């Protein structure tokens, strides 16, 4: 037993794995550590302070940007849940010509560089004569959150046995009742997991948003503005807050999608 452990520790692949995980997480640790540093520059780290966090709470523009971000993400995800879930049913259960094309086109917002959607949507709004506002940002977010939920729900639907629905139908349930009492409970975790993932991505998005932002800014765009004047301790502090928030959402998301593997 002991021998085996030693062998495991000495394996070159194991050592590589440890290094790789450090490479992935050390940069994030750096941000967290610096957010508690009392000195303004990174050099000469000594002591511990929460001063920068207190400063954040007193920054009205930052709080406003945070509220904007929550508004955009919550609205976008709500729309995406409806459009994405119904889209998943369409993708899995309807047969129509050009289904493969439909699937590929729907995937585009997830795999195309964000800059393309950013400029394409910007040109759309200009053609329509819309001012850049919360609405333009919201549309940008609906654009990429919808397929996130759609493909999560679709992959669950694909694996779902139809027998429960047939049974309900044979027992005389209406389609609405079947959806509400039979299908929905079986795909609920996929919807919640997808929505959490979509929310995390939306809350964090800057590549598309940056093109669609007028005077009304979201949190990532606001942080980006702060970075122009160098990396202040406040930037590290707000980054740590965002990081923690995202981590919590990811853990929740993992909990909901983990159910999938037991199915």
């Amino acid at each position: 037993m002991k021998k085996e452990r030693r062998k495991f520790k000495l394996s070159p692949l194991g050592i590589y794995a440890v290094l790789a995980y450090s490479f992935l997480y050390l940069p994030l640790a750096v941000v967290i550590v610096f957010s508690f540093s009392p000195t303004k520059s990174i050099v000469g780290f000594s002591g511990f302070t929460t001063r920068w966090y207190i400063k954040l709470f007193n920054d009205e523009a930052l709080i406003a940007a945070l509220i904007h971000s929550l508004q955009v993400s919550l609205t976008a995800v709500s729309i995406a849940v409806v459009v994405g879930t119904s889209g998943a049913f369409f993708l899995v259960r309807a047969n129509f010509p050009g289904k493969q094309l439909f699937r590929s086109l729907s995937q585009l917002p997830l795999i195309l560089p964000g800059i393309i959607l950013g400029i394409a949507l910007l040109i759309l709004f200009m053609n329509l004569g819309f001012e850049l506002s919360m609405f333009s940002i919201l549309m940008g977010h609906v654009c990429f959150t919808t397929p996130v939920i759609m493909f999560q729900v679709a992959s669950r639907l694909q694996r779902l046995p139809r027998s429960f629905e047939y049974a309900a139908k044979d027992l005389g349930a209406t389609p609405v009742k079947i959806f509400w009492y039979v299908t929905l409970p079986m795909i609920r975790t996929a919807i919640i997991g997808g929505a959490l993932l979509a929310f995390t991505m939306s809350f964090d998005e800057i590549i598309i948003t940056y093109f669609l932002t007028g005077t009304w800014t979201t949190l990532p765009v606001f942080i980006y503005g702060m970075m122009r004047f160098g990396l202040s301790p406040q930037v590290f502090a707000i980054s740590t807050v965002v990081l923690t928030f995202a981590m919590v959402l990811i853990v929740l998301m993992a909990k909901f999608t983990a159910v999938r593997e037991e199915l």
Partner: protein
Amino acid sequence: MKSMKELPNNKRGKKRGVFDKPRSYIMGIPIIFWLLIIIITPVILMLIMSFRQKVGYDISNILTLSNYLEILKKPSYVKILLRSFRIALIASTLAIFASYPLAYYISRKIRKGRHLLFMLIIAPLWISYLVRIIAWRAILGNKGLINSTLMALGLIKEPLSFLLYNQFAVAITLTYISIPFVFIPLYTALEKIPVNLIDAARDLGANEFHTFINVILPLCIPGLLTGFMLAFIISLGDYIIPMQLGGTGGMMLGNIIWSQFGFAFNWPLGAALGFILFSIAAVILAITQKFGSREGMLYE
């Protein structure tokens, strides 16, 4: 009554499901609207915009190829385009080399906690893109982690300025961003290899190295391709990372697109550059769909 008749006949039941025609088509209405309004129409408008031309402060309605010709004629644009290819190629290759041993180790050598280790690698995919950029600036900057550590140790007197604001900084950050994208298809490919194939290779006398070269690696090729292509597209189109870490020498395609919509204010030219990027991405995606693994594509 009808349903009772159908009950014993499974095949018929399958054909006429609860959400099958025509209700399933009604289900498609919102998503079709979404696809038409915020994907297809904007891309078409971008294409049209790329054929228009900037005249003074206005944009003319006459459609010409002049923007594309201007891009091809200007050596600085071609240079940046080639540089973007090079940086994206380096970043995606590095991401493959970094991810493959890791995916191999987790999928084949780890029994307990495999799912957690998997999640730990792909979690950075969703946790703040901007924070990760901030992190790399904090590491590579003049007053950053590397410089301040080296100075504190007395190894250098002046901060090393070659760490930040160049192609190296951009490439390393893009690699960092790309790793989860590459890891998912690689891991899925490795995990799907049946154990009895490997047992068979062993029984026929192959050692671990030969099993890897002759059995495991060839089976990973579609996954490798998908991962590489995804990382390449993501890296090629990024503009925030080169803006934050690239300086003037690390400018990429995304930067020149961005500047056309910002201070240069030449939307038609920006749209043309954007459409070039779109075409490259579309071709790469088509190749990936043909030869790559479909399972590794993010959400399938």
